[in-house]
Structures are given as structure tokens and as C-alpha cells.
């Protein structure tokens, strides 16, 4: 008996179970987390049916069921959370209702869910369409037909307004600002009058006229939008909403599976490609996607050469000894410094130090308004590069250590110098390890939020860091970031409940982007590995 027991223990069976169990636990945690994010995030864009509840006290409440939970301290009783929307009419988006109070549940087919540019969703029945205050269509069916007829024209006007606001007036503003700064620069050098000043002032004149013209056009366009829609909500309340504020109208109770799927895809696309609305709780996250990816790319461009060169010195050139070992330990420990500390360093060194100096030297006329001396995507990327450089150094060093010494000797024996050996033999062979380091660095950088909050991330950036205005790359600009967006929408928005699905969707998107970046780097590494396999058979 005792021999069999010993066999059981020394045979390693329990150890196998232990290791397997640990792995299973880890996998379950990961799968559970991802499942939670997916189930919450993916359902966000699915159009839910609108239910009309009649309560025992005679009140009628309309909305979409969000969740159902047991009532505390009352067994076998449930309550539902109803998204009633119409924040401007009711004051709150959500309402809890005890199921025991519900007398009747109905799904009227003409209930509309209207997306609009402000105040969140509007749920109700379309009553009439007005033009300048006079009704031109009455009743749900006629009104809906009228809205459909007018929507595309309104959409076109809305887009036109946006173009004028963003591109045309934006370009004029940028030119005016540049000229004003030039003028101010001249003034600082003591030139307050003369040919050059007059030349600039002459240029400013027509710009002002252009600006006035565009503003007038804008007002004209706005005034031309005279249509409005009257929507009836619970309790006899009515909302007269200008058609130009309506983005989308749908009737979930009429939609089939195909209709809902189309709606889903369209909204998913809007989420990925659109601009945010309503303090980031609605609309898309495209600027944040753009900011995240651009920041990771900028960081990679900086961190790879820096880390690789440092690792090469440590492993190939430095005399191995106590000092190098200390440096190595220090580099490893650098990876454990809290990221907010790097953020503070980035703020002090890059933004106030380097950026401040750049401002004093090259953008003095704009001061006290900082140009580079304030948070921006460049400084955020550099801060993250510092944060991730240990990862690249360690991975590269390990790769260098794994290259057989014979390979270097063979090259040297063929009359190559140390530099030629390093560039022609060692560097190609260590490429896969460098990419491994870069993959780890990118994954870390894409998910980092704390240091960004003080080095350049904002809730809403007016323009992207790359756009059509010369010089096209504006790396001094502030930017939006998915990680920060998650924090901001989830915890800083005025309407957290309404924003919650958005948080999950954004998280899912961030995960997806990290995976995509990693897959790209892994594919590159595998290709290089095949090319430069170092294991001599």
C-alpha cells in the first residue's frame, strides 16, 4: 500500500494535475473576461424592441428593457430597468419598474426610436411634420413618409455645415493665426510698421472677408432648415424637434431579423468610423482609434532603435562585469516603475523641459500660449517609449545571448571588422528577438492610460494629429485614446448608465486593435525567423 502511494506521488501525477489546473484557471479567467466584454459590448448596437407598459395605477411607460433583477428583500419578485430615454422630457434616461405593478405589456408597431444630435435617444410616436410651424403631414404613416422624403436633403445640409465649420473656417482660422503670429513676431523684434507689416495686414483683410462670407453661408444654411417633427411621448408630453437634429429613425417593433442586422452593421460601422457625440457617450470612436494607433506607431519608431542600440552595447561591446550586471538589473527594474511616474517624468522633462525650450526658441511669438510646451501625441509617445524601452532591451539582449559565438568568430575570421560582423551577421540573426520585444512593448503601450493623462490625452480633440492642413503632421496636438476613452466614458461622463455599453464596446475595440497589432508583428517575426533561423542542425 505504502509503495503504491509513493509511486502515486513520485510518479508526478499530482504535479501534472496541479500544473494543468493552474493553466485551466488562468484560461477560465481570460475567457470569462473576454466573454463578459463581448456579451456587453457586442449587444450595444442591436436594436431592442420598445415595450409599452401599463401599470396598475394607470400610468403608461414606454421604453427598452435593459436588465431584470430580483427585488431585494422580496423573494420571487423581479424588477426591470427600462430605458425610457427622452432625457429632455423626463429628466432621466432610466426607470426601475416592479414587475408586480405591470398590468399590460404591448409592442405598438409605430413606436419610433430616434437618434438625434443632442439629448440622447428620443422614444415615442411620430405625430406630425411641420414646416416653419405649419403642419404639412399629420399621423404616423404620413409623417414618416414625409421624413423619409426630407432626410437625405437634411443629411446633405448637415454635412455641408460640418464641412464649412471644420475645413473651410478652420483653414481660414489657421491662416489668420499664422499671420497674426508673424505680425507678433515682427513686433517682438521691434518692427511695428513698415513694408513687411503692411504686407501681412493686407493679407489679413481678405481673410476676414472670407471668414464673414463663410459665417453668413452657415447662417443661411441653418435658416433654410425649417422642418421639424413632433413626437409624442408618455404622459401626453410632446417634443418638437428640428429635422436637422435627427440622425436616424427606426421602428424596432417593425424590424425583422434582416432589418435589425442591417441596423447593427450600420451602427457598428458608425462606431468605428464616426466622431463622438454627447460627451463621448454616443457616436463613434474613430479619433480615439486613430490616436491610439498613431501613438503606438510613433512609440515603436522611437523605442526600437533606442532599445536595440542599448542592448547591443550591453551585450556586444561593454566589458562584462559587476557594473554591466548592475546596469542590467537596473534596466530590468525600470520595467517595474509605476507608469504614472513615467508620466510625471514625461511632463517634467519632455513637456516643460524640451517642449518649453522648443517654444522659447521657435514659437516665441505664440507665447504664453504653448505650442510644444503642452501635452501632445509626440510627448505621450516618447514617454511611452521610455516606459517600454526595458522590454525591448531585455528581449534583444536575450536574443543576442542566444546567437552562437561561433557565428561571430566565423565572420571575424573572414576578415570582417566587429562593426561589419554586427551589422551583417548579428543584427539579422537577432531580428526575431527584437520583434518579440517590440510586440511586448506595443501591447503594453496600447493599454497604458495613466501616463497619457498628463502628457497629452484629452476627452475630445478638435482635430486629428494628421490632417489636410500643412504641414500635415501635427504631433504637438493633443489626441484621443481608447484606453482613456474607456475611463472617461465609464467614470467621468454625466450619464454613466447610458454610456456603459459604450465602455464595453470601446474595450472590445481596444482589445481587437492590440491583437491586430500583435498579429502583424508576430507574422513579421515568423517570416524573419524562417529566414534567419539560428539553430544549426
Amino acid at each position: 500500500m505504502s509503495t503504491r502511494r509513493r509511486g502515486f506521488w513520485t510518479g508526478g501525477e499530482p504535479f501534472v494535475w496541479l500544473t494543468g489546473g493552474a493553466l485551466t484557471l488562468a484560461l477560465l479567467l481570460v475567457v470569462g473576461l473576454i466573454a463578459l466584454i463581448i456579451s456587453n459590448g457586442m449587444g450595444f448596437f442591436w436594436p431592442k424592441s420598445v415595450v409599452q407598459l401599463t401599470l396598475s395605477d394607470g400610468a403608461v411607460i414606454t421604453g427598452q428593457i435593459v436588465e431584470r433583477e430580483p427585488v431585494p428583500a422580496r423573494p420571487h419578485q423581479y424588477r426591470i430597468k427600462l430605458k425610457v430615454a427622452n432625457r429632455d422630457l423626463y429628466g432621466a434616461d432610466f426607470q426601475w419598474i416592479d414587475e408586480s405593478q405591470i398590468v399590460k405589456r404591448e409592442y405598438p408597431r409605430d413606436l419610433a426610436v430616434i437618434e438625434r444630435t443632442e439629448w440622447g435617444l428620443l422614444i415615442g410616436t411620430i405625430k406630425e411634420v411641420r414646416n416653419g410651424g405649419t403642419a404639412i403631414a399629420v399621423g404616423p404613416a404620413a409623417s414618416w413618409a414625409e421624413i423619409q422624403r426630407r432626410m437625405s436633403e437634411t443629411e446633405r445640409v448637415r454635412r455641408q455645415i460640418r464641412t464649412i465649420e471644420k475645413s473651410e473656417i478652420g483653414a481660414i482660422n489657421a491662416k489668420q493665426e499664422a499671420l497674426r503670429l508673424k505680425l507678433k513676431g515682427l513686433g517682438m523684434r521691434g518692427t511695428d510698421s513698415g513694408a513687411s507689416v503692411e504686407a501681412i495686414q493686407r493679407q489679413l483683410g481678405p481673410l476676414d472677408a472670407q471668414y464673414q462670407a463663410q459665417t453668413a453661408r452657415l447662417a443661411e444654411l441653418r435658416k433654410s432648415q425649417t422642418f421639424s417633427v413632433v413626437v409624442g411621448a408618455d404622459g401626453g408630453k410632446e417634443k418638437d424637434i428640428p429635422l436637422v437634429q435627427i440622425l436616424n429613425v427606426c421602428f424596432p417593433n417593425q424590424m425583422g431579423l434582416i432589418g435589425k442586422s442591417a441596423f447593427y452593421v450600420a451602427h457598428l460601422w458608425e462606431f468605428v468610423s464616426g466622431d463622438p457625440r454627447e460627451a463621448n457617450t454616443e457616436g463613434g470612436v474613430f479619433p480615439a482609434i486613430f490616436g491610439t494607433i498613431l501613438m503606438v506607431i510613433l512609440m515603436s519608431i522611437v523605442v526600437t532603435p533606442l532599445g536595440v542600440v542599448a542592448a547591443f552595447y550591453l551585450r556586444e561591446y561593454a566589458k562584462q562585469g559587476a557594473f554591466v550586471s548592475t546596469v542590467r538589473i537596473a534596466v530590468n527594474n525600470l520595467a517595474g516603475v509605476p507608469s504614472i511616474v513615467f508620466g510625471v517624468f514625461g511632463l517634467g522633462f519632455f513637456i516643460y523641459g524640451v517642449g518649453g525650450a522648443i517654444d522659447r526658441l521657435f514659437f516665441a511669438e505664440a507665447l504664453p500660449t504653448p505650442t510644444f510646451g503642452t501635452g501632445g501625441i509626440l510627448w505621450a509617445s516618447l514617454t511611452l517609449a521610455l516606459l517600454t524601452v526595458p522590454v525591448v532591451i531585455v528581449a534583444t539582449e536575450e536574443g543576442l545571448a542566444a546567437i552562437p559565438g561561433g557565428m561571430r568568430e566565423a565572420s571575424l575570421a573572414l576578415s570582417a571588422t566587429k562593426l561589419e560582423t554586427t551589422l551583417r551577421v548579428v543584427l539579422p540573426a537577432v531580428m526575431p528577438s527584437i520583434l518579440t520585444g517590440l510586440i511586448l512593448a506595443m501591447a503594453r503601450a496600447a493599454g497604458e492610460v495613466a501616463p497619457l493623462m498628463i502628457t497629452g490625452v484629452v476627452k475630445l480633440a478638435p482635430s486629428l494629429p494628421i490632417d489636410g492642413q500643412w504641414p500635415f503632421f501635427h504631433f504637438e496636438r493633443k489626441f484621443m485614446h481608447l484606453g482613456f476613452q474607456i475611463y472617461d466614458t465609464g467614470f467621468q461622463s454625466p450619464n454613466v448608465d447610458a454610456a456603459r455599453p459604450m465602455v464595453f464596446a470601446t474595450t472590445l475595440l481596444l482589445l481587437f486593435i492590440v491583437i491586430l497589432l500583435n498579429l502583424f508583428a508576430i507574422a513579421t517575426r515568423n517570416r524573419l525567423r524562417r529566414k534567419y533561423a539560428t539553430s544549426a542542425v
Partner: protein
Amino acid sequence: MAGTVSVAGGLQAPTAHASIMESPMVEIDKVNLWYGLKQALKDVTMSMSKHRITAYIGPSGCGKSTLLRCLNRMNDLVDGVKMTGTIRIGGTDIYDVAQDVTELRKRVGMVFQKSNPFPKSIFENVAYGPRILGVSSRSDLEGIVERSLRSAALWDEVHDRLQESALGMSGGQQQRLCIARAIAVEPDVLLMDEPCSALDPIATAKIEELMLELKNSYTIVIVTHNMQQAARVSDYTGFMLLGELVEFGVTRDLFTNPRETKTEDYITGRFG
């Protein structure tokens, strides 16, 4: 096996230590070498003739590889090495301050114990040395690669897969590729550090055959554990023990009629 030693090369063999060389290519004079405090070579004096194969035998750690690596100054790379004495190759002192190490290594090629092809294509492996020396025209490189691979008796096996990775070759082929790579820069002297120790007998036989072929154009110095190999291929053999050159002479004499008892003990297998 040790009894049936056959000596290659029909040499008129002078026996006296100082006068055995026909025309010396490599001259080693009173070389001492220390790794830190440990002395690895003690007063080694000898010379190697042009277009002959000189072999070193001796037990592990006797300093034969160290001596070999002195000839292309590979020991320079090791920390804490100190050397005294002079080594002349083709008449020039290779440890002279004016000596360019890379120029020396162009003249003195080396093949290592463990085959170490670069993780590149077969073509790029052979073309590596010439490229370093500045040959860049594709047609020149192709000529050099073909000539080197033919000299290393590898051309027929690999000519149709020159662009494939060198790491896909067999161990013996890899070692012959390393030989081809070394002779692609046309050195005067070819150093071989136990080139067959990791190979099977058939691959070993091929390399030995190749050495006999190559000695018509190169001066070859080989370090080997394998006494039969030294006896089969070399013209001169040196026996080293604990950093000293115990005996050096024409291979046939050293194996059939050793002057020193230590040599006799070693080659008859009484120790080592």
C-alpha cells in the same frame, strides 16, 4: 589501428629539429601565452612549410587550439590574454603594431571545430568574405562562389540550391561549406581547428580527401584529437602536452619512431 599508420606525401624527411623545413610559411619563435595567470603556451618554437599539412596532436587542454588561434590573432578577442614571442607569416611579424588584423585574417583563413555557417543562403555564406573585401559585382561573386564550392568538393551537391538556407545541409556538408567560405577569400594559410570532431567517418573521409587536395594551393594547419587523422593527412606533426611542444617532426617519423617517451606513450595509447 595505431600500428597501421600510413604516411601521406612522399617526403625526404630530414630529422633534425631545426632543419626540417623546406620553405617556411609560418615561423613561431619562443611564444608564451597566458590566460590571466594561467600559462597556456610555454616557449613554443617551430615553423610550418608552404603547401604542406601540419598537424598538432595532444590531449585536451594542451594548448594546441590556443596556438592555432594565435596564427590569425583570434585570441585578441579574449579578455586577459598576454603573449610574448614572435610569429611571422610569409616573413611579416603578425603581432607588429602596424599589422592590420583584418588584413591578416584575409591571409589566414580558419575553419572551426563546430561548423558555423551563417543563417543565410549557401551562396551568401560563400560570398560573405568576398563581399567584406569589397567584391560587389554579381558575376564576380558567382565566379568566386562556384570556384570555392568546387574546391571544397561541394559544387555538385549544392549547385542547384544555392539560394536555400545553409542550415538545411547535413553536418558534413556544412563543414565543407565553411571550408569553401574560408577559401573564397584566397588565404595563404588555412587553419583547421578539429574540423572533423563532430562528423561521422564518411564525412570525415571526405574532408580529409579535401585537405589533401587543398594543400596544393594552401598551407594547412590542423589541430586534431584523432591521431589516425594526423597520420593519414599530415606531412608534419607536432605533439603538445601542457602547453609545451614536446616533439615536432615529419609525420612518419613521429608516429613510427618518436624521439620522446612522452610522445610514444601518447601515440601508443598509454595515456591521454
